[in-house]
């Protein structure tokens, strides 16, 4: 993605002009009240979900960016994660990774950066991105704790697997049209450790985050009434996809287990042939040869097992985590809609109250006390209603934003998923072919040696 992210367009006019054409689903009719103020789009979303100061764009222009600026060929930022190192302090021991960035983007002060980051820092970045974009899909991080089968957190294989996953994570962020322009991302890539620590301390406070959570729980309890069909379909897909990818993960792990056990048995074959060759004279040479072949095949099998563990399983595992991410994103979208629906209801109720009240008042008080107390009350109600209206508009905005963001990112995610899984399986198939090719060569060389031997002795007819 190229170009500056800052876009100062602010759309005015009534809300229908601001709704991009690709929004399907219901368009709420917000024009029922003439005394509504025309409002300008707020660049910050209220209710604690902070929005980076640099994001001066409206949903409309953002979505335009989604559609037109997605080509990956003009990649202008390259991120690598490598070189794990152990750090020992009085309190704890932890691993840091080197994060190197090379970029031509103008918003970066320099073209090359090198920093060291620990797992916690990655977690922080992920959290920030999710907060800022509740309905965008953030690629999962490797899990915090050790997966089954490993005991030592600082085991070499574990660190290497984690490093690769962290590398993939950052690259996915860098390739994402919205995330890659995140200020937090930039700071993550470029800030010295001290700077990062102080930056981490900024951002929405604990209390506002709590408020978030409470609202989310309340919304979840309330539930969504009129979920648009496409999101229901999305949810069904995610459910099914989740099951399939979990199955694939399990099947692959089972294959690895079976291959390891096969390898254990095969390792005993070579030495047995070698032992036999010690009792023989004429047969000693071919037997030793076979022993060597079996041993070489063992090595290839060992490598094959490692390949599966190192390449296919982590990718499958990531997509298992992705499925969970998708479920969470859909849930958050639902909450936003539920919130909007609740506010709509509340406003309607309030208005109904105002109407009934005004009718009642005018009948009862008109003759008795005159208009002034009623006017005061009406004025008060009008104020309240206006406030609720503002709130509702913001909620509506948030919902539109969320829906559009999700829809675009959903399409994007599907493409990425397809590419990732396709290349993972193609890679696996290639490695399998290579494995069999190597073993084939081993046995063909044995045959060749026996042929030249036999033809030399005039012994055997190979027809």
């Amino acid at each position, binding site marked *: 993605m190229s170009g500056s992210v800052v876009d100062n367009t602010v759309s005015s006019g009534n809300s229908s002009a601001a709704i991009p054409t690709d929004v399907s689903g219901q368009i709420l009719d917000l024009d029922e009240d003439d005394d509504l103020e025309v409002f300008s789009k707020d660049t910050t979303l209220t209710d604690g979900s902070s929005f980076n100061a640099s994001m001066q764009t409206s949903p409309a222009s953002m979505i335009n960016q989604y559609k037109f600026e997605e080509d990956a060929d003009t990649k202008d930022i390259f991120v690598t994660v490598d070189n794990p190192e152990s750090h020992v302090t009085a309190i704890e021991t932890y691993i840091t990774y080197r994060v190197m960035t090379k970029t031509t983007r103008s918003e970066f002060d320099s073209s090359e950066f090198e920093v060291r980051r620990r797992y916690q820092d990655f977690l922080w970045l992920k959290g920030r991105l999710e907060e800022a974009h509740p309905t965008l899909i953030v690629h999962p991080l490797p899990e915090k704790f050790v997966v089954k089968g490993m005991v030592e957190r600082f085991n070499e294989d574990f660190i290497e697997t984690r490093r690769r996953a962290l590398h993939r994570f950052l690259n996915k962020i860098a390739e994402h049209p919205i995330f890659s322009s995140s200020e937090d991302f930039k700071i993550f890539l470029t800030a010295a450790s001290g700077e990062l620590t102080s930056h981490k301390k900024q951002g929405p406070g604990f209390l506002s985050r709590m408020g978030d959570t409470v609202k989310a729980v309340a919304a979840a309890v309330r539930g969504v009434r009129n979920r648009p069909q496409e999101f229901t379909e999305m949810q069904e*897909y995610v459910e*099914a*996809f989740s099951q*399939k990818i979990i*199955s*694939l993960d399990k*099947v692959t792990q*089972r*294959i690895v287990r*079976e*291959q390891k*056990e*096969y390898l*254990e*048995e*095969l390792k*005993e*074959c070579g030495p*047995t*042939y070698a*032992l*036999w060759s010690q*009792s*023989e*004279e*004429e*047969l000693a040479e*071919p*037997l030793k040869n*076979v022993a060597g*072949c079996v041993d070489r*095949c063992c090595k290839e099998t060992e490598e094959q097992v490692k390949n599966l563990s190192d390449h296919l399983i982590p990718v499958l595992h990531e997509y298992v985590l992705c499925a969970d991410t998708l479920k969470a994103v859909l849930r958050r979208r639902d909450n936003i809609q539920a919130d909007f629906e609740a506010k709509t209801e509340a406003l309607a109720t309030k208005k109904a109250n105002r109407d009934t009240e005004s009718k009642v008042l005018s009948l009862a008080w008109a003759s008795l006390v005159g208009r002034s107390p009623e006017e005061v009350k009406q004025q008060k109600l009008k104020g309240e209603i206006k406030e609720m209206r503002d709130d509702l508009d913001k909620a509506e905005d948030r919902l539109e934003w969320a829906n559009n963001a999700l829809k675009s990112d959903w399409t994007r995610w599907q493409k990425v998923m*397809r590419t990732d*899984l*396709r290349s993972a*399986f*193609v890679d696996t*198939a*290639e490695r*399998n*072919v290579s*494995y*069999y*090719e190597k*073993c*084939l060569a081993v*046995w*063909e060389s*044995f*045959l060749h040696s*026996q042929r030249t031997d036999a033809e030399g002795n005039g*012994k*055997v*007819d190979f027809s």
Partner: protein
Amino acid sequence: RGKRRSTYDRNTEEQMLEPTICSLRGYCSGIEYCDSLDQNLQMVEKGTSLLKKMEISVAEAEKRTGKNAVNMQETYTVYLIETRPVDAASEGTNPVPDSLWRRYSEFELLRNYLLVTYPFLVVPPLPEKRAEFVWHKLSADNMDPDFVERRRVGLENFLLRVASHPDLSSDKIFYSFLTEENGWKETVFETGFQAKADSRLKALNATFRVKNPDKRFAEMKHYGDELQSVISQLLRVRARAADRLYGVYKVHGNYGRVFSEWSAIEKEMGDGLQSAGHHMDAYAASVDDILEEEEHYADQLKEYLFYADALRAVCRKHELTQYELEMAAQDLTSKKQQREELATGTIRTFSLKGVTSKLFGQETPEQREAKLKMLETQIEEGEELVKERNAECEEFVKSAWVDIERFKEQKDHDLREALISYAIMQISMCKKGIQVWNNAKECFSKM
């Protein structure tokens, strides 16, 4: 599945055997229980194998039920032995082969007869009585059709090996086993071979006590032990590896299932996934043929596992004949010594007689004379016995060693062939793997 021929390659066997000199004739003339060249055996010329004149095969297997010795109902398998003169086939006419049915126990009887009758020969083994070195998918059931089929091949192999042996092939009992369905058992028992079998105790005793066995035989016996041990180990390890390999392939079948289910919820990825799934199913299924081929290799190894036993039996027989010679010689020596003592009146060795004669007085000259005469007779007989046994021993060593050399060559050739066929199997397996995964890769790239 076509009928698999036994591993035995007639042409190569004959090539190898032609230069072999059969020393059986010399040995036979001295020993009563050996077959002499019966004029009735028209079909077999001197010094050649039966196989040159006759085609032999174990064509089929069938289940039968009947009453056994204790009058209980039992189910057993019978095998159809077909024979046909070689000349007839090569003349262009294709006469119906002669055939008869035999069950496994009759094969066993034949072999036991051969073992007793030709103790100086390495008698070809039968296929195993019960399935051993079994991995989980392979049945241990004697009635299992795969087991029966492999046994059929093994029995044919046995007959061909016997029929191509320069000495065994001219055996009358063997010939009638192939040609006379009824009354064969009685004929075998009439030879009285069972009485001639050495008791295990006698053999074991000889093994422990023999003082001077031929070094080569001692080495051969040791080799037989090693061969048996290492082949057993190899078969065990191989069976376990086969079991595991089966698991690896079969689990890939799950990929097929999941890909198929997954393809149902995808739009663009669906086709690629679906077809990749089919290849995964094919991969999972391919292991059955692969392992069946490997069982064939295992059978070749098993034959030599059992051959090792036959080899050791020859060595044990040598120990026995050598021991009996040593015993006779020892006995002769002691008798000679006794004569000397009696003749000279000196007691060189401690004996109860010597002590009692000292205590109770010497014998009368007449008594001594009688004793001396008896001893002389015994010594004469003893010398004859030693001469006999010595000849026996020498003949045995000569004939047995010839057959052992023949066996060595056959073993080296056959096992080398087996290793080569194992390599060919592995190559075939790799080629199949390459094909399947290349196909899968194509499908995946269309995802």
